[in-house]
């Protein structure tokens, strides 16, 4: 009897800590997984946070599955909350969202244009302390407001919002038209370095496409216009209709904490090329035989570009050595570029065009905007013995005077599935 009593006494002692409950235990169906967070400036020096929460999948498997009709199910639930910081926004939103909001599966952090121009460091600095916030989310800068952007997330082909985000933001899918590394970690690390220009993916909402009112212009009567290169567009001005009403094209460049401008897709490709983060992409060039036509080449980097810094007190000279190679994949010209003399012509023309475009972007970012997007600062830092000297140098003020030299070579490797151009039978003469 005594032993029984003693055993019974032990039970509440052991169970006492357990009685208070398992504090952190949270079932998956109790959670609301935020997929995207958007920030816009708010009315009184605060911010408007827009959240896109993934809708849980309905349990069709258990019920034996009866498919719903043709109506599109909503796969994200979007709401906005005005607050001074992200944690306050989450707390306020918890009052009307039944499940517990959590950021652990978030994929995207969207900065609205006006906020970007005002300065994003307060927002980033506050968000990075949050224990649920992950440094691997992608940062996107939108033209216009972030909440419009998030409301426009309506994938047409995917039922799974996670799949859409991950595929859309995968640099292997999208090619080099957006910066290769646009994660929060890269963004804030670049921002914390002196003189560096952080870059993010540029995107825009397309309300015209959503409403079905996008029209691509009809055939132009002017037959003399040269073919435009689509890569010279920004996000938001892509000439298209249909599909998801969101564009990801180009990049946004920051000087310190303020956004200073946009880059077109082509400029972004050049930036990736100089940074050494080039994903295999299709590039359009002017056809050397006919200025009005374009040709497409699948480019890839032969090896990583070399960047050499020469510092002479305050004068800095950067030399880039870039080696690219490509396959000719599309050409309108009647010239057979696989013949050696034409190949040489093509390569020279491509190199010239590349050089032209890279100097334009270097001028634009370094001389005009005074921001260093190419991690030149890292190499300049190597020339100082201690950190104190480096910080005393004030790299940002010296970017404008930095000179650069470009050494770009291109080599054509393959020519696609066709050797010579396809020629109409009547126009062909066999010599």
């Amino acid at each position: 009897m005594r032993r029984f009593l003693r055993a019974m006494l032990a039970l509440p002692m052991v169970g006492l800590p357990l009685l208070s409950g398992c504090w952190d235990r949270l079932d998956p169906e109790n959670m609301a997984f935020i997929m995207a967070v958007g920030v816009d400036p708010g009315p009184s020096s605060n911010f408007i946070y827009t959240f896109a929460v993934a809708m849980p999948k309905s349990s069709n498997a258990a019920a034996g599955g009866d498919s719903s009709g043709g109506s599109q199910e909503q796969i994200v639930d979007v709401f906005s909350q005005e607050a001074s910081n992200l944690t306050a926004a989450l707390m306020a939103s918890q009052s009307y969202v039944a499940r517990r909001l959590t950021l652990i599966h978030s994929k995207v952090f969207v900065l609205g244009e006006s906020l970007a121009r005002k300065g994003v460091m307060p927002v980033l600095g506050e968000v990075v302390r949050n224990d649920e916030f992950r440094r691997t989310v992608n940062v996107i800068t939108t033209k216009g407001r972030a909440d419009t952007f998030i409301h426009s997330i309506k994938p047409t082909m995917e039922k799974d919002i996670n799949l859409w985000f991950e595929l859309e933001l995968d640099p292997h899918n999208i090619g080099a038209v957006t910066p290769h590394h646009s994660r929060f970690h890269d963004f804030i690390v670049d921002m914390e370095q002196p003189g560096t220009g952080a870059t993010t993916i540029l995107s825009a909402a397309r309300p015209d496409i959503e409403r079905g009112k996008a029209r691509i212009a009809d055939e132009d009567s002017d037959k003399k216009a040269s073919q435009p290169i689509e890569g010279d567009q920004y996000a938001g001005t892509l000439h298209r209709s249909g599909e998801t009403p969101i564009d990801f094209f180009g990049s946004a460049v920051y000087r310190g904490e303020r956004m200073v401008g946009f880059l077109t897709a082509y400029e972004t490709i050049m930036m990736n090329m100089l940074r050494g983060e080039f994903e295999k992409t299709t590039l359009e060039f002017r056809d050397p035989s006919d200025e009005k036509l374009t040709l497409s080449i699948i480019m890839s980097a032969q090896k990583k570009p070399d960047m050499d810094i020469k510092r002479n007190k305050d004068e800095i000279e950067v030399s880039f050595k870039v080696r690219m190679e490509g396959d000719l994949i599309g050409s309108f010209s009647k010239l057979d570029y696989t013949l050696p003399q034409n190949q040489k012509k093509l390569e020279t023309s491509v190199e010239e065009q590349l050089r032209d475009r890279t100097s334009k972007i270097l001028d634009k970012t370094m001389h005009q905007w005074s921001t260093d997007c190419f991690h030149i600062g890292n190499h300049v830092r190597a020339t100082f013995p201690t950190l104190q000297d480096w910080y005393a140098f004030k790299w940002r003020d010296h970017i404008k005077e930095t000179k650069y030299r470009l050494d770009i070579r291109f080599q054509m490797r393959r020519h696609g599935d066709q050797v010579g151009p396809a020629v109409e039978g009547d126009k062909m003469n066999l010599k």
Partner: protein
Amino acid sequence: MNTHRIGVRETASIGIIFIIAKIFLPFQRSLAEIGGTAAWIIALIAAMLCPLTWWSIRGVLRHASGGSTLIEATEEIWGPWLGTIWNLVYFTFFFTITFLVLREFSELLASDILPRTPMNIIMIAMLIPIAVVAYAGLEAIGRFCWSAAGLIVASVVIVLMGGLMTHFEPDALLPFWGTGRSQVLSLGLVKSSLFSEMLVFGFLLPRLRKTSQWPKAAWWCMSVSAFTIFITTFVYLFVFPYPTAIRLNVPMFELSRLVIFGRWIQRLESVFLISWLICAVVKLAIGLYCSAATLSQMMKLPKVQPVIFPLALLVYACSILPGSEMEAVLWDGQYLRTYGSLVSIGIPMLTWLLGMIKSKLKGQQT
């Protein structure tokens, strides 16, 4: 007292785990704070000073009667009064390590992994396995360490490689001298307390079967732990370059959160948490065992086991002492790690010197 023997591998693993468990605490950040981009130089200098502890312990044990541990040898060489004072200093050292690391690790668990669980539940939940493992004795600790050491070092290497693949900042280590050459060098000397946990060898060496196995165990331990501590600081600076490096709370944890490789391998920090939790618990068990062994050898008790439960209670009580996470990190950085090398290098060296003088005098007499 039971004098069970342990092998070379177990000894080296115990030492390794005891030393490298600190990489899961904010030590890389404190190195980056004081050294800037030259934090790795500080780690390197600290590693170079590590053999001093080993040589002085070996010297002390040589000059005392065979089979005695560091505590008994200190008392033998210095005499009862002074020896007990030095042993009390050793005891304080091990005890401080134990309760501070317990507190810091519980803070890490409380802020990131289990946010709503009350702190004392976490600490008690950690203390129970710590006490059980320490109670099981040094052989059991050795066997467990041997199985766990490989796992821990492998997970550290995987995290580092994953981090490098995610973000690699070129030239992150330059400017070379970081915050200044003299500061880096002097701080390197001070921070040799990073390896002051080598003192545990004072308990391990007498348990090895042969004296010839001592150097092998010691050098394995020193090289692997020096390598691990160095490589984590080194890679940390590449993945989180200088200004960011001084702002993160727990570097290795943030590194593991950053690892992303394609669509499937991401958000795996809880997997690495497994090995780090094992490392922390085992280190604290070793620390608790060392404090208990010091105390029981000072009081000349035949067994270590009975002292462990009361000491565990004391550890719990003391780990609640710091008022906040910042205070705990402050105590660790400012007091333990600054003066730790005095305890781990200074006292054994003095003891060794005195032992040499004494044996020379004895040799002259006879």
